């Protein structure tokens, strides 16, 4: 009879609480958006599914062994844990806070205790540790993205890099917004958290995940969901801003055809970029280094096997684990907080400001130079490859049916990827300079 009880008291129905239920509904919502509305499905399907799994009551898939012990341990076990941590047990939040801030040696002892008491790491916790905790997954995604990126349009017109720079203004404006909210007492973001939230404005998934895994892992779930959702919303967010900031005549500007780019230039570009990163911003070396490596494999023409694997089997595998791992950060007691609402609000502002800054920069460049560029390609500087470039093209066609901006917009589009990785490096450097 007590086994029947165990089955019942161990069931999801018995243990369901409002938080878990809410998060499961959110998980299904993400799946709906991904599958029906085609919102960045490659990431949001695994993230949404991982979010549901993480919130299955009593399964504890997203918890480490110590977290499981803290959540479901008996009174005696919790006292043992408290003794190991040198404190008294009050509730699971308090004991976990002590654990998270304990020195590494104490953490190890707590882990050994949990292991001796037969607690194990949950599946999603393991995925997270291996894929994101080690930072390897976003870096491999970046390598794959590098191997898929054609820098031809950028090389044909390097000035478009300025557009990719301007659009990063969204990142830093958002940081300011986040610290502003904290100053007003609405939220309670540290400077690390503000920096991690800002990177949503980079409109670049792996960069956002990388930065928040380094600076603010506790916000990773909300940041990743915001980043990918808003990237999917680019076709709705950007056009009104683009139209508000440009005249009909500006939108109708036709651009001169791009010059052809030689194979050698394409091979040299990732190496030039690598050298600049090495000289100017070593903190961006992991991200941009892997990106340049992927691109070099693509262009050099002698390692097509490797490039092909980086673009297919490897990036797909990593994407599956990355998505599920991000999902593991959607557990109710971490995700359901006013901070998440703040992050979602700041994220969309970041996109809007980045878009505006890109368009305005293009108009400024037209003031300073004779070769006119269509300011609509400025919005592509936020990244969101290749969606933002397609938006530029579409809005351009509305103004002038002979105006094919796609290739011209690919320049600022990939420049935006570089720009936000540089911004990521600066923020990591800056914040660690404060901390150190």
């Amino acid at each position, binding site marked *: 009879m007590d086994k029947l009880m165990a089955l019942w008291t161990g069931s999801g129905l018995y243990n369901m609480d409002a938080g878990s239920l809410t998060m499961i509904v959110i998980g299904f919502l993400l799946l709906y958006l991904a599958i029906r509305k085609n919102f960045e499905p490659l990431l949001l399907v695994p993230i949404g599914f991982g979010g549901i799994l993480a919130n299955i009551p009593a399964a504890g898939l997203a918890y480490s062994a110590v977290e499981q012990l803290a959540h479901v341990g008996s009174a005696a076990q919790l006292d043992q844990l408290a003794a190991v941590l040198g404190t008294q047990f009050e509730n699971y939040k308090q004991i976990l806070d002590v654990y998270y801030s304990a020195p590494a040696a104490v953490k190890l002892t707590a882990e050994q205790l949990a292991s001796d008491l037969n607690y194990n790491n949950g599946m999603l916790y393991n995925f997270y540790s291996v894929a994101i905790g080690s930072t390897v997954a976003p870096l491999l995604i970046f390598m794959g993205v590098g191997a898929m990126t054609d820098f031809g349009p950028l090389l044909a017109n*390097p000035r478009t890099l300025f557009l990719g720079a301007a659009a990063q203004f969204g990142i*830093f404006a958002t940081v300011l917004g986040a610290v502003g909210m904290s100053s007003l007492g609405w939220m309670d973001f540290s400077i690390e958290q503000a920096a991690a939230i800002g990177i949503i404005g980079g409109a670049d998934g792996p960069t956002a995940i990388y930065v928040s895994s380094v600076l603010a892992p506790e916000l990773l779930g909300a940041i990743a969901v915001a980043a990918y959702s808003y990237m999917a919303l680019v076709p709705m967010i950007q056009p009104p801003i683009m139209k508000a900031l440009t005249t009909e005549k500006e939108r109708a500007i036709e651009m001169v055809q*791009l010059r052809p780019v030689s194979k050698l230039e394409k091979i040299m570009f990732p190496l*030039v970029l690598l050298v600049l990163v090495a000289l100017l911003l070593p903190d961006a070396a992991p991200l941009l280094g892997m990106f340049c490596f992927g691109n070099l494999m693509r262009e050099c023409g002698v390692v097509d096997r490797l490039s092909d694997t980086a673009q297919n089997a490897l990036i797909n595998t990593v994407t599956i684990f990355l998505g599920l791992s991000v999902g593991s950060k959607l557990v109710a007691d971490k995700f359901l907080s006013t901070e998440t609402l703040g992050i979602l609000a700041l994220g969309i502002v970041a996109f809007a400001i980045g878009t505006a800054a890109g368009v305005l920069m293009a108009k400024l460049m037209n003031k300073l130079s004779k070769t006119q560029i269509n300011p609509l390609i400025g919005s592509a500087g936020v990244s969101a490859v290749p969606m933002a470039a397609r938006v530029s093209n579409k809005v351009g066609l509305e103004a002038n049916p002979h105006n094919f901006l796609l290739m011209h917009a690919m320049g600022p589009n990939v420049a935006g990827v570089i720009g936000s990785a540089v911004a990521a490096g*600066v923020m990591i450097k800056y914040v660690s300079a*404060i901390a150190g």
Partner: protein
Amino acid sequence: MSQEADLINEGLSLMMFGMGFVFVFLTVLVFATSLMSKITLALAPMAPEKATPNARPSVAPVASDPSSDPVLLSVINEAVRQHRARRQ
């Protein structure tokens, strides 16, 4: 100075330094890239692999419809013809 003002100051200075550095970096990259292109083209005068406007659509490898390409279709037809011939 209050702690809130401190945080705001941090935010402001991160914005200035950050945006500044991004612009400096990408400006240097513009010049380095242009220089590289000039040297490259001087050393190996253009044997253009492909003109970019017609280049493959970069980050979207899924596309490319085989049934719209007459060359491909003829290859396929040839393959099928030979296969049938061989089976007989």
